[in-house]
């Protein structure tokens, strides 16, 4: 094994340190948690632990393509530049757009943003962070004057009261959750309140679970502020010295939400429970409120986040050890994206487009020829503009909007008719890549070098330990090469990520003088070697704080013009859409434990798909029975915008009338399970973040004739069906199928003809059941089972048996092992009695052929085995005689 490479995990916003050991040919790696990394101190979650399964060149995009044609990089980038220039020439710079990703490293992000905002001259670069973080950004900026996360992970451990709202962090941020669980185990007096309409895994740790009406969290926190004010549980000194607009906000809150009974009713809680929460909050100085997508993904999300910040401002609990609001991010580099200005309404380095001073500063620093004066198109508007033909060229980097955007079918339609769609990605097939005119192979995790910033502002290095596969290139390199073709070689003269990082740090320091929160002045002259060995560090990193800064605002200095934090007076609102007779159930959406985003990486790991292997909708048992559903039934879920087919599952954590679907499945892995095709493109008016969490839907069971499982070495064409869901394993692909048309073994064999040379088969004249075991050169390459109900298989046994190829096809066709089967010699053919059974009868006292016969039936028909019975009798009785 080679030396250990220290890098960071590419999944959630926790940003865990990962130690990687590669073997000599880099085929296998070993992954472990980095004991020294301050995010995880050696811990890893299941996804992180399975990172080794996800590397390798299988299913990777390895070469540039124009259409279906593999081309050279030169040709691909010439074509990209030519098409982009043509659109700019004919329609202006706002007719081009980049849609980028929190998966990009900070350096990638920086050059993409710089190219768009300083050189192409448009602000049309938005990111999938719009879907997850933009509400927190907007709330931070409105309240603090800057997009600042005031606290750090340690605060979550130090808190005496930890309020977790809108986050199933046990599954979405498992390592932070484990840190909290460990802290609570050590200090059981620490109280945890979980606010979530679902009883999730996270709620298992809670002293109090507030199972609120979906979307009512704004009332809860507005009510909290009113209650704190009325009960004089506020920090008057902090309010007076460091904030503004308190009085007006407090008055509004009291007027709106001063009646705790009414608030409890609004939130679907009993008064006592709500009062307990309010009292705990009021009485606990060290209180941390962690918020995530449940707050952010709402049509009034900015007001909800601001309501949380209001409560912390009113109690002066901000930026103090164990006392702070804390927005936890979804993606590994959502924070890095915010730092470079990767959102359409940001400029760069936490500066704003609509601030002329900022624009001038950045222009000078970049020596930019063309700067936009208006904010660009936010994600939903961006794809609308593509649909309307206003944006004619879009470059999508490292993300899959056809799956992740709301009203996802419209997004697909928009891209399908866009003049030029360029997609750079590290995998070969995504729903979005299928619509690309130009596909560019990007480096993946383990191949890329750069930095990411986690939820607590901690910058960590992601380091490469694998060679670049095929012709893949790092994103910064691809963007830089394009910038050269556009004529900006001087401004994009980077030779390595460190060049970019130094410039990024330089911009953060440029004209800062303490006026902006984001500052890396301590890193502007980092050498390449220093960059390579950079240890995880929290920004700001200034000359006088070279080791970083854990907390902001403890001193009460904010980044507004008057340095005071602003209370935001926002009237709480119910969910933007309500259920009615046609769509009677409220659908929530979110992550599951073992998958990440649109599964492009996690689905490469068989074990990550073992936990939950198919898309589902969770329902309360009352709704299950009202709909006549059994656990596992396939149902059609409809909203005003689209429909999905997934499996219904009973989940006691749901409240009646609500449902939950995972966000991960897409057209590569399932026939029709993109939850975002159901979701309305309703956004928060300030942040532009879509409301993914509350969608009225209807559910109907679909009538099916058969259910099937196909296991094959390579992907096979599927027979006509209503539903399929595929998942790869190390050597096999497993497809779950269901259909409503009659199936026939003959048709299937024709469909798969050429891949298989011999079939062992079970054929049913009524077509109810089919089993096929297909061989090629005497090796099993295909296994298929079809029957009226879902086939039950022992998957690990079957895959192993198929790999070993040492069982007869009949046993394979069963799909489950015949454990305990007697494999001793067959003695009595007539009654199928085997030696082991006879020996046990002898051991039980049978001492003659006759008594064996009456006990086991052996030898009682034709008698041909009686000599054998005698032999067994003699063999077993002789030793006794000798005794």
């Amino acid at each position: 094994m080679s030396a250990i490479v220290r890098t960071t995990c590419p999944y959630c916003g926790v940003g865990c340190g990962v130690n990687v050991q590669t073997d000599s040919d880099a085929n296998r790696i070993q992954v472990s948690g980095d004991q020294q990394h301050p995010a995880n101190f050696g811990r890893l979650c299941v996804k992180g632990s399975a990172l080794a399964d996800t590397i390798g060149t299988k299913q990777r995009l390895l070469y540039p393509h124009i259409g279906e044609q593999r081309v050279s990089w030169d040709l691909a980038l010439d074509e990209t530049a030519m098409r982009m220039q043509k659109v700019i020439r004919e329609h202006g710079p706002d007719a081009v757009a980049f849609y980028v990703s929190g998966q990009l490293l900070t350096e990638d992000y920086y050059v993409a943003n710089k190219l768009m905002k300083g050189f192409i001259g448009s602000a049309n670069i938005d990111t999938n962070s719009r879907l997850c973080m933009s509400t927190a950004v907007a709330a931070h900026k409105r309240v603090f004057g800057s997009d600042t996360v005031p606290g750090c992970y340690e605060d979550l451990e130090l808190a005496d009261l930890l309020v977790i709202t809108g986050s199933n962090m046990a599954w979405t941020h498992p390592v932070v959750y484990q840190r909290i669980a460990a802290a609570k185990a050590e200090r059981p007096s620490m109280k945890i309140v979980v606010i979530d309409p679902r009883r999730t895994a996270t709620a298992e740790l809670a002293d109090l679970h507030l199972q609120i009406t979906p979307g009512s969290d704004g009332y809860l926190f507005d009510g909290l502020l009113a209650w704190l004010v009325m009960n004089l549980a506020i920090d008057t000194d902090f309010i007076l010295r460091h904030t503004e607009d308190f009085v007006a906000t407090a008055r509004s809150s009291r007027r709106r939400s001063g009646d705790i009974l009414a608030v409890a009713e609004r939130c679907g809680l009993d008064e006592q429970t709500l009062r307990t929460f309010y009292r705990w909050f009021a009485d606990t100085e060290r209180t941390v409120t962690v918020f995530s997508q449940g707050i952010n993904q709402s049509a009034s999300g900015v007001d909800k986040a601001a309501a949380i910040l209001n409560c912390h401002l009113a109690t002066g609990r901000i930026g103090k050890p164990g006392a702070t609001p804390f927005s936890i991010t979804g993606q590994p580099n959502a924070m890095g994206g915010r730092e470079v200005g990767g959102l359409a309404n940001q400029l760069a380095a936490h500066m704003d487009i609509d601030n002329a001073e900022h624009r001038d500063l950045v222009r000078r620093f970049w020596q930019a020829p063309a700067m936009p004066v208006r904010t660009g198109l936010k994600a939903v508007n961006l794809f609308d503009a593509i649909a309307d033909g206003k944006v004619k060229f879009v470059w999508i980097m490292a993300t899959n909007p056809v799956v992740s955007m709301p009203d996802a079918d419209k997004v697909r339609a928009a891209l399908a008719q866009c003049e030029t769609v360029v997609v750079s990605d590290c995998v070969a097939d995504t729903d979005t890549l299928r619509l690309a005119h130009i596909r560019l192979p990007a480096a993946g995790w383990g191949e890329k070098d750069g930095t990411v910033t986690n939820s607590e502002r901690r910058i960590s290095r992601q380091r490469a330990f694998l060679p670049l596969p095929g012709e893949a290139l790092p994103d910064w390199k691809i963007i830089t090469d394009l910038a050269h073709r556009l004529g900006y070689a001087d401004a994009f003269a980077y030779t390595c990520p460190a060049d970019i990082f130094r410039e990024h740090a330089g911009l953060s320091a440029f004209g800062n003088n303490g006026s902006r929160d984001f500052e890396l002045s301590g890193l502007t002259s980092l050498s390449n070697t220093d960059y390579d060995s950079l240890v995880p560090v929290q920004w700001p990193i200034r000359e006088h704080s070279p080791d970083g800064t854990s907390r902001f605002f403890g001193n009460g200095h904010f980044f507004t013009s008057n340095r005071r934090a602003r209370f935001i007076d926002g009237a709480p609102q119910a969910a933007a859409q309500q259920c009615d007779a046609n769509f009677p159930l409220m659908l929530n959406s979110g992550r599951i434990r073992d998958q990440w985003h649109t599964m492009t990486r996690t689905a490469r790991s068989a074990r990550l798909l073992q936990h939950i292997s198919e898309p589902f909708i969770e329902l309360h048992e009352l709704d299950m029975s009202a709909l006549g559903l059994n656990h596992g039934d396939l149902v059609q879920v409809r909203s005003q915008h689209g429909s999905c087919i997934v499996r219904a599952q009973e989940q006691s954590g749901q409240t009646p009338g609500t449902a939950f679907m995972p966000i991960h499945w897409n057209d590569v892995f399932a026939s029709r399970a993109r939850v975002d095709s159901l979701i309305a493109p309703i956004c928060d008016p300030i942040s532009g973040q879509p409301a993914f969490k509350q969608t009225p839907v209807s559910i109907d069971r679909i009538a099916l004739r058969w259910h099937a499982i196909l296991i094959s070495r390579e992907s096979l064409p599927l027979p006509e069906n209503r539903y399929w869901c595929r998942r790869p394993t190390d050597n096999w692909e497993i497809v779950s199928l269901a259909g409503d048309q009659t199936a026939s073994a003959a048709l299937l064999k024709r469909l798969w003809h050429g891949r298989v040379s011999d079939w062992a088969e079970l054929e049913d004249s009524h077509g109810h059941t089919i089993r096929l075991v297909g061989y090629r050169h005497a090796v099993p390459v295909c296994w298929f089972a079809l029957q009226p109900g879902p086939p039950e298989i022992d998957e690990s046994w079957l895959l192993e048996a198929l790999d070993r190829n040492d069982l007869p096809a009949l046993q394979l066709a069963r799909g489950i092992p015949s454990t305990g089967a007697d494999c001793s010699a067959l003695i009595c053919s007539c009654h199928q009695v085997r030696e082991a059974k006879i020996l046990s009868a002898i051991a039980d006292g049978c001492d003659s052929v006759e008594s064996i016969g009456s006990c086991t039936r052996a030898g009682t028909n034709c008698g041909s085995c009686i000599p054998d019975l005698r032999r067994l009798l003699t063999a077993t009785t002789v030793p006794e005689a000798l005794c």
Partner: protein
Amino acid sequence: MASGRLVIIGNGMAATRLLDELVVRDARRFAITVIGEEAAAGYNRIMLSPWLAGEKSRNELITHARDWYEQHGISLLSGDPAATIDTDQQCVITESGSRIDWDQLVIATGSRAAILPIPGNRLGNVLCFRTLDDAQRMQQFSRRGGNAVVIGGGLLGLEAAYGLNRLGMHVSVVHNGDWLMNRQLDEEAGSRLAESLRQRGISVHVGCNSEAFVGNGNVEGLQLADGTLLPCSLAVIGIGITPEVSLARAAGLQCERAIITDPLMRTSVENISALGECCQISGELFGMIAPIYQQARVLARRLCGEETEGYQSEVLPTRLKVSGIDVFSAGNLRELDDCRTLVWRDPKLGHYKRLWLRDGRLVATVLFGDASDGGHYFDLIQQAGRIADPAALLLGEVAA
């Protein structure tokens, strides 16, 4: 309750089984005399095929040696067949003229090989396959090698063919049905069986009628209806059996195809019973061993004065005992057009299994290559219960 002198005509498997059943009850109740046609003591006729094929020794065939009879006080008269039965005098006269009186008579004369009524069937080296004697002659003859023709592609014929093949002869099987074992197998299994036999070097001719044996003194060939001449130095007729009822018929017992017997094994004449291949119960004849064993038990119980419900007719499975080719069949294969059928085929192992279901109940099965589930399927056919998951049944039972 009967007692006194009990005479059994026949010393085949039905008779010896009856003796076993009597011995375990009260052997001394009767003075038993057994009149056997064949010279040997009791042997297992079913094991003639494996013996012919060299898979069993002669000793292993013998189920009841002479001293067994002596031990149990049974007198065995072998080599002096019964010639007449006198129902009035209640005695049997043997060919040598001995008179044996009885209080109870049991006729267990079994059957003879069916005769093929074509010219030349009396030529030398045209044999049947029925007795130890027949098998011994076939075994002796095979030492000379050469070509053998077996007529009959049923159970008996195929066993003879396999035995001769194992003994080194070039064997052709001629069968008038459209496929081998057409009473017990469906066409696909029959074809697979033919293919397996061909792989073993046995020629198979199905859908062929035999016209005549040709030869001068000894058989030299078999002429088929289509004109083909199959040269051979040995011909074995294995087309079935004919119940041996000449003694009974001559004695005036009521007979049709065999001796008419009630479920308690009583013939039309008082104190005379019959069992085995020579009896007929409710129009049914018997060739398989299981019902005959049942009859032996019924008869023994009645003779010993025990309660008995009488013989119960049962559907029987067929298992072809040709080593290496496991073939099993159960149920009536002639009336299955309306059935749901499930088939398993494994070309790699040459296995084939078929189930027929009517109204969700298993009614018939044919297994080829792997008959290990035959007994279980047979039980299910008997039980006639609903099969919840026929496919799982076809794929074999799996431990829960």
